[in-house]
Protein backbone atom coordinates (compact mmCIF):
# COMPACT_ATOMS: atom_id res chain seq x y z
CA UNK A 1 0.00 0.00 0.00
CA UNK A 2 1.44 3.27 -1.00
CA UNK A 3 -0.63 6.31 -0.28
CA UNK A 4 0.73 9.76 -0.66
CA UNK A 5 0.50 11.62 2.59
CA UNK A 6 -1.96 14.46 2.29
CA UNK A 7 -1.86 17.67 4.27
CA UNK A 8 -1.93 17.44 8.06
CA UNK A 9 -5.16 17.98 9.96
CA UNK A 10 -6.28 21.60 10.21
CA UNK A 11 -5.34 23.70 13.23
CA UNK A 12 -6.13 27.11 11.76
CA UNK A 13 -9.58 28.32 12.79
CA UNK A 14 -9.50 31.52 10.77
CA UNK A 15 -9.79 35.08 12.01
CA UNK A 16 -11.79 34.79 15.21
CA UNK A 17 -12.77 36.51 17.48
CA UNK A 18 -11.16 34.11 19.93
CA UNK A 19 -11.71 33.93 23.67
CA UNK A 20 -8.51 31.94 24.09
CA UNK A 21 -5.41 32.30 21.95
CA UNK A 22 -2.07 30.68 22.60
CA UNK A 23 0.91 31.16 20.32
CA UNK A 24 3.83 28.79 20.38
CA UNK A 25 2.94 27.94 23.98
CA UNK A 26 5.63 25.72 25.46
CA UNK A 27 5.89 24.33 28.97
CA UNK A 28 8.57 22.00 30.29
CA UNK A 29 8.89 20.02 33.47
CA UNK A 30 12.63 19.31 33.73
CA UNK A 31 13.53 17.48 30.56
CA UNK A 32 9.91 16.67 29.72
CA UNK A 33 8.07 18.92 27.31
CA UNK A 34 4.47 19.05 28.54
CA UNK A 35 3.24 21.56 25.99
CA UNK A 36 5.02 21.84 22.70
CA UNK A 37 4.58 25.01 20.60
CA UNK A 38 0.82 24.98 21.05
CA UNK A 39 -1.41 27.27 18.96
CA UNK A 40 -4.76 26.83 20.68
CA UNK A 41 -7.70 28.89 19.38
CA UNK A 42 -11.02 28.80 21.15
CA UNK A 43 -13.58 30.90 19.25
CA UNK A 44 -15.87 33.17 21.21
CA UNK A 45 -19.04 31.30 22.14
CA UNK A 46 -17.60 27.90 21.24
CA UNK A 47 -17.98 24.73 23.27
CA UNK A 48 -14.55 23.26 22.65
CA UNK A 49 -13.55 19.79 23.79
CA UNK A 50 -9.93 18.89 24.30
CA UNK A 51 -9.23 15.19 23.87
CA UNK A 52 -6.07 13.22 24.42
CA UNK A 53 -4.58 10.42 26.47
CA UNK A 54 -3.30 10.78 30.02
CA UNK A 55 -0.18 12.90 30.09
CA UNK A 56 -1.00 14.63 26.79
CA UNK A 57 -0.88 18.00 28.56
CA UNK A 58 -4.59 18.80 28.94
CA UNK A 59 -4.45 19.67 32.64
CA UNK A 60 -1.22 21.63 32.27
CA UNK A 61 -2.75 23.57 29.40
CA UNK A 62 -5.83 24.53 31.43
CA UNK A 63 -3.67 25.52 34.41
CA UNK A 64 -1.51 27.68 32.14
CA UNK A 65 -4.62 29.45 30.86
CA UNK A 66 -5.52 30.79 34.31
CA UNK A 67 -2.02 31.52 35.47
CA UNK A 68 -1.68 28.53 37.78
CA UNK A 69 1.25 27.19 35.79
CA UNK A 70 3.98 29.30 34.24
CA UNK A 71 4.87 28.91 30.60
CA UNK A 72 8.43 28.65 29.38
CA UNK A 73 7.81 30.14 25.99
CA UNK A 74 5.10 31.68 23.84
CA UNK A 75 2.08 33.89 24.43
CA UNK A 76 -1.30 33.33 26.05
CA UNK A 77 -4.37 35.52 25.88
CA UNK A 78 -7.57 34.64 27.74
CA UNK A 79 -10.47 37.10 27.46
CA UNK A 80 -7.89 39.67 26.40
CA UNK A 81 -5.79 39.03 29.51
CA UNK A 82 -2.34 37.51 29.86
CA UNK A 83 -3.05 35.21 32.81
CA UNK A 84 0.58 35.12 33.84
CA UNK A 85 0.57 38.86 34.53
CA UNK A 86 -3.00 39.26 35.73
CA UNK A 87 -3.85 35.85 37.12
CA UNK A 88 -6.41 37.06 39.66
CA UNK A 89 -8.27 39.05 36.98
CA UNK A 90 -8.35 36.03 34.69
CA UNK A 91 -9.53 33.70 37.48
CA UNK A 92 -12.32 36.14 38.38
CA UNK A 93 -13.73 35.82 34.85
CA UNK A 94 -13.39 32.07 34.55
CA UNK A 95 -15.45 29.22 35.92
CA UNK A 96 -12.76 26.63 36.58
CA UNK A 97 -13.24 23.02 37.56
CA UNK A 98 -9.79 21.65 38.38
CA UNK A 99 -8.61 18.11 37.77
CA UNK A 100 -8.42 17.37 41.50
CA UNK A 101 -11.40 17.11 43.82
CA UNK A 102 -9.94 19.06 46.72
CA UNK A 103 -11.76 22.28 47.54
CA UNK A 104 -9.61 25.20 48.67
CA UNK A 105 -11.39 25.79 51.98
CA UNK A 106 -11.61 22.35 53.61
CA UNK A 107 -12.76 23.75 56.98
CA UNK A 108 -15.80 25.57 55.56
CA UNK A 109 -19.25 24.09 55.24
CA UNK A 110 -20.54 24.08 51.66
CA UNK A 111 -23.08 26.75 52.65
CA UNK A 112 -20.31 28.97 54.00
CA UNK A 113 -18.25 28.36 50.85
CA UNK A 114 -21.14 29.54 48.67
CA UNK A 115 -21.51 32.72 50.78
CA UNK A 116 -17.81 33.28 50.32
CA UNK A 117 -18.14 32.89 46.53
CA UNK A 118 -21.11 35.23 46.50
CA UNK A 119 -18.92 37.93 48.06
CA UNK A 120 -16.02 37.08 45.77
CA UNK A 121 -17.80 37.19 42.39
CA UNK A 122 -19.71 40.39 41.54
CA UNK A 123 -21.75 38.45 38.97
CA UNK A 124 -22.78 35.65 41.39
CA UNK A 125 -26.39 34.65 40.62
CA UNK A 126 -27.94 33.66 43.97
CA UNK A 127 -31.14 32.21 42.46
CA UNK A 128 -29.19 30.18 39.98
CA UNK A 129 -26.89 28.92 42.73
CA UNK A 130 -29.95 27.82 44.73
CA UNK A 131 -31.35 25.98 41.70
CA UNK A 132 -28.03 24.21 41.20
CA UNK A 133 -27.96 23.23 44.88
CA UNK A 134 -31.35 21.57 44.30
CA UNK A 135 -30.47 19.96 40.97
CA UNK A 136 -27.21 18.61 42.39
CA UNK A 137 -28.74 17.69 45.76
CA UNK A 138 -25.91 19.44 47.57
CA UNK A 139 -25.90 19.25 51.37
CA UNK A 140 -25.01 22.76 52.54
CA UNK A 141 -24.20 21.69 56.09
CA UNK A 142 -21.36 19.34 55.08
CA UNK A 143 -17.76 20.40 55.63
CA UNK A 144 -15.86 20.67 52.35
CA UNK A 145 -13.17 18.34 53.67
CA UNK A 146 -15.69 15.57 54.27
CA UNK A 147 -17.10 15.53 50.73
CA UNK A 148 -16.72 12.43 48.59
CA UNK A 149 -15.18 12.78 45.12
CA UNK A 150 -18.58 12.99 43.46
CA UNK A 151 -20.01 15.44 45.99
CA UNK A 152 -16.94 17.61 45.68
CA UNK A 153 -17.22 17.62 41.88
CA UNK A 154 -20.83 18.80 42.12
CA UNK A 155 -19.83 21.69 44.40
CA UNK A 156 -16.98 22.59 42.04
CA UNK A 157 -19.38 22.63 39.07
CA UNK A 158 -21.87 24.72 41.01
CA UNK A 159 -19.23 27.30 41.95
CA UNK A 160 -17.92 27.42 38.37
CA UNK A 161 -21.37 27.97 36.84
CA UNK A 162 -23.20 30.17 39.36
CA UNK A 163 -21.33 33.39 38.59
CA UNK A 164 -22.15 32.92 34.90
CA UNK A 165 -18.59 33.60 33.80
CA UNK A 166 -17.84 34.41 30.15
CA UNK A 167 -15.46 31.42 30.09
CA UNK A 168 -15.67 27.92 31.55
CA UNK A 169 -12.56 25.78 31.88
CA UNK A 170 -13.70 22.31 32.88
CA UNK A 171 -11.10 19.63 33.56
CA UNK A 172 -12.93 16.28 33.51
CA UNK A 173 -16.23 17.81 34.72
CA UNK A 174 -17.96 14.43 35.12
CA UNK A 175 -15.06 12.67 36.87
CA UNK A 176 -16.25 10.89 40.00
CA UNK A 177 -19.95 11.41 39.20
CA UNK A 178 -22.37 8.49 39.09
CA UNK A 179 -24.61 7.89 36.07
CA UNK A 180 -27.58 9.88 37.29
CA UNK A 181 -25.56 12.92 38.31
CA UNK A 182 -23.58 12.77 35.07
CA UNK A 183 -26.89 12.91 33.25
CA UNK A 184 -27.98 15.87 35.38
CA UNK A 185 -24.69 17.62 34.62
CA UNK A 186 -25.13 17.31 30.86
CA UNK A 187 -28.61 18.85 31.04
CA UNK A 188 -27.34 21.60 33.33
CA UNK A 189 -24.61 22.41 30.80
CA UNK A 190 -27.16 22.50 27.92
CA UNK A 191 -29.33 24.90 29.88
CA UNK A 192 -26.35 26.98 30.93
CA UNK A 193 -25.29 27.39 27.28
CA UNK A 194 -28.87 28.38 26.38
CA UNK A 195 -29.14 30.93 29.21
CA UNK A 196 -25.70 32.54 29.36
CA UNK A 197 -23.34 33.67 26.63
CA UNK A 198 -20.44 31.34 27.38
CA UNK A 199 -17.28 30.02 25.86
CA UNK A 200 -16.28 26.63 27.23
CA UNK A 201 -13.10 24.62 27.03
CA UNK A 202 -13.67 21.11 28.34
CA UNK A 203 -11.10 18.42 28.80
CA UNK A 204 -12.40 14.89 29.11
CA UNK A 205 -11.76 11.21 28.63
CA UNK A 206 -15.45 10.57 28.21
CA UNK A 207 -15.86 12.25 24.85
CA UNK A 208 -19.01 10.27 24.09
CA UNK A 209 -20.79 11.97 26.99
CA UNK A 210 -20.38 15.49 25.69
CA UNK A 211 -20.20 14.76 21.98
CA UNK A 212 -23.50 16.52 21.31
CA UNK A 213 -22.76 19.47 23.56
CA UNK A 214 -19.59 20.60 21.85
CA UNK A 215 -19.02 22.29 18.52
CA UNK A 216 -15.21 22.34 18.38
CA UNK A 217 -12.59 19.71 19.05
CA UNK A 218 -8.86 19.79 19.63
CA UNK A 219 -6.78 16.62 19.68
CA UNK A 220 -3.77 16.74 21.94
CA UNK A 221 -0.95 14.18 22.00
CA UNK A 222 2.36 14.52 23.80
CA UNK A 223 1.91 18.25 24.23
CA UNK A 224 1.16 18.82 20.55
CA UNK A 225 -2.11 19.80 18.95
CA UNK A 226 -2.67 17.26 16.14
CA UNK A 227 -5.65 19.23 14.91
CA UNK A 228 -8.42 21.57 15.98
CA UNK A 229 -11.60 22.19 14.05
CA UNK A 230 -15.38 22.50 14.23
CA UNK A 231 -16.93 19.11 15.02
CA UNK A 232 -19.06 19.45 11.86
CA UNK A 233 -15.88 19.57 9.80
CA UNK A 234 -14.52 16.48 11.54
CA UNK A 235 -17.80 14.65 10.98
CA UNK A 236 -17.85 15.71 7.34
CA UNK A 237 -14.26 14.94 6.45
CA UNK A 238 -13.21 12.02 8.61
CA UNK A 239 -15.24 9.08 7.39
CA UNK A 240 -15.17 5.34 7.33
CA UNK A 241 -15.27 3.69 3.92
CA UNK A 242 -16.29 0.11 3.32
CA UNK A 243 -15.28 -1.08 -0.12
CA UNK A 244 -15.13 -4.30 -2.11
CA UNK A 245 -11.76 -4.74 -3.72
CA UNK A 246 -10.42 -7.07 -6.41
CA UNK A 247 -7.75 -9.69 -5.62
CA UNK A 248 -4.35 -8.15 -5.08
CA UNK A 249 -5.82 -4.67 -4.66
CA UNK A 250 -3.23 -1.96 -4.30
CA UNK A 251 -3.96 1.66 -3.71
CA UNK A 252 -1.26 2.98 -5.97
CA UNK A 253 -2.88 6.17 -7.17
CA UNK A 254 -3.40 9.11 -4.91
CA UNK A 255 -6.55 8.64 -2.84
CA UNK A 256 -7.25 12.38 -2.49
CA UNK A 257 -7.37 11.83 1.23
CA UNK A 258 -5.27 10.82 4.15
CA UNK A 259 -5.67 7.28 5.42
CA UNK A 260 -5.99 7.33 9.20
CA UNK A 261 -6.74 3.68 9.82
CA UNK A 262 -6.87 0.52 7.69
CA UNK A 263 -8.59 -2.76 8.31
CA UNK A 264 -8.46 -5.19 5.45
CA UNK A 265 -10.06 -8.48 4.56
CA UNK A 266 -9.31 -10.60 1.49
CA UNK A 267 -11.67 -8.79 -0.82
CA UNK A 268 -13.01 -5.97 1.27
CA UNK A 269 -11.51 -3.14 3.23
CA UNK A 270 -12.56 -0.73 5.92
CA UNK A 271 -10.55 2.44 5.86
CA UNK A 272 -10.88 5.61 7.85
CA UNK A 273 -9.91 8.49 5.61
CA UNK A 274 -9.61 12.24 6.07
CA UNK A 275 -10.73 13.99 2.90
CA UNK A 276 -13.63 15.17 0.76
CA UNK A 277 -15.99 12.21 0.51
CA UNK A 278 -16.67 12.54 -3.24
CA UNK A 279 -12.99 12.76 -4.09
CA UNK A 280 -12.13 9.84 -1.83
CA UNK A 281 -14.88 7.67 -3.35
CA UNK A 282 -13.62 8.56 -6.83
CA UNK A 283 -10.09 7.70 -5.74
CA UNK A 284 -11.23 4.27 -4.59
CA UNK A 285 -13.07 3.83 -7.90
CA UNK A 286 -9.97 4.64 -9.95
CA UNK A 287 -8.08 2.00 -7.99
CA UNK A 288 -10.73 -0.59 -8.83
CA UNK A 289 -12.54 -0.63 -5.48
CA UNK A 290 -16.31 -0.33 -5.10
CA UNK A 291 -17.34 1.75 -2.10
CA UNK A 292 -20.35 0.12 -0.42
CA UNK A 293 -20.86 2.44 2.48
CA UNK A 294 -19.53 5.67 3.90
CA UNK A 295 -20.26 6.72 7.47
CA UNK A 296 -19.14 9.42 9.85
CA UNK A 297 -17.37 8.48 13.07
CA UNK A 298 -18.55 9.39 16.51
CA UNK A 299 -16.31 11.96 18.18
CA UNK A 300 -14.97 9.24 20.44
CA UNK A 301 -14.12 6.94 17.53
CA UNK A 302 -12.62 9.85 15.60
CA UNK A 303 -10.40 10.84 18.52
CA UNK A 304 -9.30 7.24 19.00
CA UNK A 305 -8.46 6.82 15.31
CA UNK A 306 -6.52 10.10 15.16
CA UNK A 307 -4.61 9.42 18.36
CA UNK A 308 -3.71 5.89 17.29
CA UNK A 309 -2.36 7.08 13.95
CA UNK A 310 1.37 7.60 14.31
CA UNK A 311 1.63 9.62 11.12
CA UNK A 312 -0.63 12.42 12.36
CA UNK A 313 1.59 15.05 13.87
Amino acid at each position, binding site marked *: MNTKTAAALPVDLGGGPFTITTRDLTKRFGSTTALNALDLRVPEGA*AYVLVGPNGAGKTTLLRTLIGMARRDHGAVEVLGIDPERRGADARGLVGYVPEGHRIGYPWMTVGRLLKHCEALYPSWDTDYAARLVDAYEVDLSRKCRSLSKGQSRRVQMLVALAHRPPLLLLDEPTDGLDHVIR*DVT*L*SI*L*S*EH*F*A*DSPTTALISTHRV*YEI*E*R*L*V*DHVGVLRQGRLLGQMPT*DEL*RGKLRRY*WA*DVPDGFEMSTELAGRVIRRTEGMRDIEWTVWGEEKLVVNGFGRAGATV*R*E*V*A*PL*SLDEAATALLANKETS
Partner: protein
Amino acid sequence: MRVHLQTSDNRPLYVQIMDEVRRGLVRGTLSPEDALPSVRELASSLQINPRTVSQAYAELEREGVVRVRPGKGTFVAPEVRPEENERPRLAREVALRTLADVSRNGLLLEEVLEALHGLGQAVEREEALEEGIG
Protein backbone atom coordinates in the same frame (compact mmCIF):
# COMPACT_ATOMS: atom_id res chain seq x y z
CA MET B 1 -43.56 15.35 19.93
CA ARG B 2 -40.75 13.02 20.94
CA VAL B 3 -37.40 13.63 19.31
CA HIS B 4 -34.98 10.73 18.85
CA LEU B 5 -31.40 11.34 17.80
CA GLN B 6 -28.72 8.88 16.80
CA THR B 7 -25.04 9.68 16.91
CA SER B 8 -24.22 6.97 14.39
CA ASP B 9 -26.66 8.45 11.88
CA ASN B 10 -25.20 9.91 8.70
CA ARG B 11 -27.33 13.01 9.02
CA PRO B 12 -26.03 15.92 11.11
CA LEU B 13 -27.92 16.40 14.37
CA TYR B 14 -29.76 19.52 13.22
CA VAL B 15 -31.03 17.65 10.16
CA GLN B 16 -32.21 14.82 12.39
CA ILE B 17 -34.19 17.33 14.47
CA MET B 18 -35.72 18.77 11.29
CA ASP B 19 -36.68 15.28 10.13
CA GLU B 20 -38.21 14.52 13.53
CA VAL B 21 -40.45 17.59 13.20
CA ARG B 22 -41.46 16.45 9.71
CA ARG B 23 -42.13 12.98 11.03
CA GLY B 24 -44.32 14.44 13.79
CA LEU B 25 -46.34 16.28 11.12
CA VAL B 26 -46.80 13.17 8.99
CA ARG B 27 -47.79 10.98 11.93
CA GLY B 28 -50.08 13.64 13.31
CA THR B 29 -48.35 14.08 16.66
CA LEU B 30 -47.71 17.66 15.51
CA SER B 31 -50.35 19.86 13.87
CA PRO B 32 -50.33 23.31 12.30
CA GLU B 33 -49.98 26.07 14.90
CA ASP B 34 -48.71 23.69 17.59
CA ALA B 35 -45.88 25.04 19.73
CA LEU B 36 -42.51 23.29 19.42
CA PRO B 37 -40.47 22.80 22.57
CA SER B 38 -38.30 25.83 23.36
CA VAL B 39 -34.67 25.72 22.29
CA ARG B 40 -33.64 25.47 25.94
CA GLU B 41 -36.09 22.64 26.73
CA LEU B 42 -35.20 20.55 23.72
CA ALA B 43 -31.46 21.12 24.14
CA SER B 44 -31.68 20.15 27.80
CA SER B 45 -33.75 17.02 27.25
CA LEU B 46 -31.50 15.84 24.41
CA GLN B 47 -28.35 17.08 26.17
CA ILE B 48 -27.18 18.84 23.05
CA ASN B 49 -25.81 22.26 22.30
CA PRO B 50 -28.71 24.76 22.11
CA ARG B 51 -27.22 26.16 18.91
CA THR B 52 -27.95 22.86 17.18
CA VAL B 53 -31.64 23.24 18.04
CA SER B 54 -31.62 26.90 16.94
CA GLN B 55 -30.04 25.87 13.66
CA ALA B 56 -32.74 23.24 13.05
CA TYR B 57 -35.54 25.69 13.84
CA ALA B 58 -33.98 28.39 11.64
CA GLU B 59 -33.75 25.95 8.70
CA LEU B 60 -37.34 24.83 9.25
CA GLU B 61 -38.41 28.45 9.28
CA ARG B 62 -36.60 29.05 6.01
CA GLU B 63 -38.53 26.12 4.56
CA GLY B 64 -41.79 27.61 5.83
CA VAL B 65 -42.52 24.65 8.14
CA VAL B 66 -42.33 26.63 11.37
CA ARG B 67 -42.60 30.24 12.36
CA VAL B 68 -40.69 31.94 15.14
CA ARG B 69 -42.83 34.39 17.07
CA PRO B 70 -40.43 36.63 18.96
CA GLY B 71 -40.91 36.32 22.70
CA LYS B 72 -43.49 33.55 22.30
CA GLY B 73 -41.64 30.63 20.82
CA THR B 74 -41.56 28.50 17.71
CA PHE B 75 -44.78 27.21 16.17
CA VAL B 76 -45.73 24.98 13.30
CA ALA B 77 -46.73 27.30 10.47
CA PRO B 78 -50.53 27.46 10.02
CA GLU B 79 -50.23 26.86 6.28
CA VAL B 80 -48.24 23.60 6.35
CA ARG B 81 -49.89 20.78 4.42
CA PRO B 82 -48.24 17.64 5.76
CA GLU B 83 -50.07 15.36 3.29
CA GLU B 84 -48.94 17.36 0.27
CA ASN B 85 -45.43 18.37 1.32
CA GLU B 86 -43.93 16.63 4.34
CA ARG B 87 -45.30 13.20 3.49
CA PRO B 88 -43.65 12.86 0.06
CA ARG B 89 -40.54 14.44 1.44
CA LEU B 90 -40.33 11.95 4.30
CA ALA B 91 -40.98 9.10 1.87
CA ARG B 92 -38.03 10.33 -0.19
CA GLU B 93 -35.80 10.43 2.91
CA VAL B 94 -36.73 6.86 3.80
CA ALA B 95 -36.14 5.81 0.18
CA LEU B 96 -32.69 7.42 0.21
CA ARG B 97 -31.74 5.57 3.36
CA THR B 98 -33.07 2.34 1.90
CA LEU B 99 -31.06 2.85 -1.28
CA ALA B 100 -27.90 3.26 0.78
CA ASP B 101 -28.75 0.05 2.61
CA VAL B 102 -29.35 -1.79 -0.67
CA SER B 103 -25.97 -0.69 -1.98
CA ARG B 104 -24.19 -1.55 1.27
CA ASN B 105 -25.51 -5.07 1.06
CA GLY B 106 -24.45 -5.42 -2.56
CA LEU B 107 -28.04 -6.04 -3.66
CA LEU B 108 -29.91 -4.78 -6.69
CA LEU B 109 -32.82 -2.40 -6.23
CA GLU B 110 -35.09 -4.77 -8.22
CA GLU B 111 -34.42 -7.64 -5.82
CA VAL B 112 -35.29 -5.53 -2.80
CA LEU B 113 -38.38 -4.08 -4.47
CA GLU B 114 -39.57 -7.61 -5.24
CA ALA B 115 -38.98 -8.67 -1.63
CA LEU B 116 -40.81 -5.58 -0.35
CA HIS B 117 -43.72 -6.27 -2.66
CA GLY B 118 -43.97 -9.87 -1.40
CA LEU B 119 -43.85 -8.75 2.23
CA GLY B 120 -46.51 -6.11 1.58
CA GLN B 121 -48.85 -8.70 0.09
CA ALA B 122 -48.30 -11.05 3.04
CA VAL B 123 -49.16 -8.24 5.48
CA GLU B 124 -52.29 -7.40 3.50
CA ARG B 125 -53.39 -11.06 3.51
CA GLU B 126 -52.94 -11.22 7.30
CA GLU B 127 -54.91 -8.04 7.79
CA ALA B 128 -57.69 -9.37 5.57
CA LEU B 129 -57.77 -12.62 7.60
CA GLU B 130 -57.90 -10.76 10.91
CA GLU B 131 -60.74 -8.61 9.65
CA GLY B 132 -62.57 -11.76 8.53
CA ILE B 133 -62.24 -13.26 12.02
CA GLY B 134 -63.18 -9.98 13.76
